[in-house]
């Protein structure tokens, strides 16, 4: 008996960007009903491979077959026509349109008229089949992140996708939402579709996939059945090529409060406003903020960074009241900041790396005196940080945007830690980072903790929150609805609180 025709076969894919071989001789097969976990550190070539499949890049070598037929995929329209759908990490939706209108974007309809009735019928059918239900008349801007993702998946199915690529799909979901997503994926697999699931969260890959393919430095290093004997530790080692040990978090008695918020509220039109936020982060303590994105975490971070004005309440750093916080003042008081959007609010990707690394301190010695830059001092500082943090970059003059996500994060950490901050505010510090880079970031936080500094960790990654925090505060609709010492917290409790159930604590 011959082997069944695979749904998708990518053969001998090679792709080069300048000096970097992003993909080398990559083989990938997907049978109907497969859920393939695609694992690898940042820069391992997963995204390149998926971009080739989705028509964003053309491969230098190799071929793609769908249902045994060789195909050429030159752009995303061709990919969709061949039944390939992709749900990106960042959604491509029109917030001011309804669910239905977003589904009809790019569809010709009949004689210039949108075929709404047929669309609603199809939406209904998808909803019943895969438990992906959405009200067609709701505005996309009003949907939660989880619902927007559901819409992206529905959009792909709507266009007739039989191969669905999901890039880091659970990054912004509550545990309960993630479970819902997994149910839908299983239903699709049962229908004979193929799913490619890219994630850094190994426990999810273990939970949902049927096969796992691990990539490293552009090559496939392992292809395995997701059998019970495959451990997360083993997968992590395959990804980074060496053994990993869990971080050490010794018992520690916290000291005086370094960051103190009392009844903080904001009043900004069109945003989630904070209400009655009271929180202490003490010396030698890591406090984790959990919550579904959009529940005020970003606003909290911006208030502490001095970017958003307080409408009420007070803020203190190490006992000193800050009546009118500004980025300058907060920085001068010893506040370090790892922003959520490192490309947008942290670094200047279009300028040399060294510019980003000295950006907050450019007006001070040794980087400038009387307004005149000391390029020697800047260079020495940046080279020292590159060395100290093992940042993989072609030197201080390379454009920051060419660095990988992990190295950008290391550069930001290096910049903020170089001044020995009293309080570190870290938002989504390991989002999109691979296991090795995330481990590095976590070690830096634990080192700050050991040196009696305070860390406020805002994260949507519960595993991270649970690994690092001494206390967990959960945010819901602009309020902190509960604070749990780590000993009393469990994923279920925190998950329910994230959904707004106050008495879960």
């Amino acid at each position: 008996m011959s082997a069944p025709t695979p749904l998708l076969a990518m053969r001998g894919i090679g792709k080069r960007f300048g000096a970097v071989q992003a993909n080398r001789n990559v083989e990938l097969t997907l049978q109907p009903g497969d859920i393939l976990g695609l694992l690898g550190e940042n820069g391992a070539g997963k995204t390149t491979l998926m971009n080739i499949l989705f028509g964003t890049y053309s491969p230098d070598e190799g071929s793609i077959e769908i249902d045994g037929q060789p195909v050429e995929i030159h752009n995303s329209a061709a990919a969709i026509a061949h039944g390939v759908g992709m749900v990106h990490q960042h959604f491509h939706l029109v917030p001011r349109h309804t669910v239905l209108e977003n589904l009809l974007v790019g569809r010709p309809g009949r004689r210039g008229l949108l075929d709404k009735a047929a669309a609603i019928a199809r939406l209904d059918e998808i909803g019943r089949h895969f438990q992906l239900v959405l009200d067609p008349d709701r505005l996309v801007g009003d949907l939660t992140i989880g619902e927007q993702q559901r819409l992206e998946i529905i959009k792909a199915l709507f266009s007739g996708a039989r191969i669905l690529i999901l890039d880091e799909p659970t990054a912004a979901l509550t545990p309960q939402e993630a479970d819902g997503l997994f149910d839908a994926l299983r239903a699709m697999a049962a229908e004979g579709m193929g799913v490619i699931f890219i994630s850094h969260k190994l426990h999810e890959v273990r939970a949902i996939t049927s096969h796992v393919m691990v990539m490293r430095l552009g090559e496939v290093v392992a292809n395995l059945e997701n059998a019970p004997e495959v451990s997360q530790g083993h997968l992590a080692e395959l990804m980074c090529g060496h053994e990993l040990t869990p971080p050490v978090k010794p018992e520690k008695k916290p000291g005086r409060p370094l960051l103190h918020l009392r009844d903080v509220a904001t009043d900004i039109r069109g945003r989630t406003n904070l209400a009655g936020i009271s929180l202490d982060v003490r010396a030698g303590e890591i406090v984790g903020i959990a919550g579904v994105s959009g529940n005020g975490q970003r606003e909290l971070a911006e208030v502490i960074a001095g970017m958003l004005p307080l409408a009420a309440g007070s803020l203190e750093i190490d006992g000193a009241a800050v009546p009118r916080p500004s980025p300058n003042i907060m920085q001068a008081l010893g506040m370090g900041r790892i922003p959520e959007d490192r490309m947008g609010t942290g670094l200047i990707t279009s300028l040399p790396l060294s510019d980003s690394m000295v950006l907050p301190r450019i007006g001070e010695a040794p980087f400038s005196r009387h307004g005149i830059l000391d390029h020697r001092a800047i260079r020495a500082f940046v080279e020292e940080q590159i060395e100290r943090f093992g940042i993989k970059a072609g030197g201080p003059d390379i454009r920051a945007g060419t660095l990988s996500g992990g190295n950008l994060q290391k550069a930001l950490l290096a910049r903020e830690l170089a001044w020995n901050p009293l309080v570190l505010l870290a938002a989504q510090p390991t989002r999109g980072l691979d296991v090795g880079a995330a481990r590095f970031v976590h070690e830096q936080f634990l080192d700050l903790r050991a040196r009696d500094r305070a860390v406020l960790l805002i994260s949507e990654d519960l595993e991270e929150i649970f690994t690092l925090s001494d206390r967990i505060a959960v945010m819901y609709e602009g309020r902190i609805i509960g604070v749990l010492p780590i000993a009393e917290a469990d994923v279920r409790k925190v998950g329910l609180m994230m959904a707004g159930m106050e008495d879960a604590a």
Partner: protein
Amino acid sequence: MIRMRLERRDSTPTWLNLTLPVLAVLATLVLCSGLVAMAGANVWTAYSKLFLSAIDSRSHIVETFVKAAPLIFTGLAVAVAFRAKFWNIGAEGQLLAGAMAAAFIGGREGLPAWSLVPLMIVAGAAAGGLWACVPAVLRTRYKVDDVVSSLLLNFVIFYGMTALLDGPWKDPLSGYPDSPDILMEAEFPILLERTRLHLGVLLALLSAPLVWWVMRKTSLGFSIRAVGENPVASRYAGISTGAVILMTAILSGALAGLAGVGEVAGLHFQVMSGISPGYGYTGIVIAMLARLNPLGVVPAALFFAVIVTGAESMSRATGVPVFLAEVIQGAALLTMLVALLFTSYRIRIARHG
């Protein structure tokens, strides 16, 4: 089938940065050669006249530099502003502000003779800088689009100026709407006997390296670039973006104002409504051609000066209208904008099937 697609580059090679403006200029000339041919002239003769007549004698070379001086100033003004993504389309108006301030000071009796030239320079720069603050403040305070406001303010000051020249500021001895001449002591010294090579030309040539130094070696220049490339990250890092935009506007407007000072104190010795044939707008093209590099502004301005000076001789010799010079200026901007695409993208040719 052969397909072409654009792919993002990781970095721009240096040779490309240097050759792109040259290639853009060549492409412009090729594009415009059709027009030359339509005018019934031999393309080769016309172009050689256009370029060579501006540099074929000492006096022509000097004239080219004199012509280039205001273009260097306005080119620098735009280059500085665009670095901060402060879209100053108002160099023309700031030039007029500088020219008026210079003519006002230069025409005043009773000031010590030695102080006139420095005072005119300072006043012209200040007037240009101040006028540039208007769109900057409108943008930082009220989020008014700077392209629109800086452009429209050109007309405000232009018609304000012509009203003055037609009324209270009109030279009673002249039949035209001109201001009275400035004092003899206020005229810029001539640097080369029997030519029009005045102090303003030297100032323009010195300004380019000075502006380069400010942009490259000072924390202000650093902040201007940072705010231009990522205002949000700059604000988070404690840089006051509003203040930086305002400083940029003052610097940019002052440079444009100096262009006006040079024209008044070095060439015309009065203000008249035609004092600038659009130097402020040409400055935009020059800055783009120079890729916003202050040092690149000098060759770009010289190139334009050559074309403007040479257009006359070309027209006399071949009958091609002088307007070709303006067509070349406009086309050069377009080809350069296209060329800039290749600094961040490369063409990939893929063969299929």
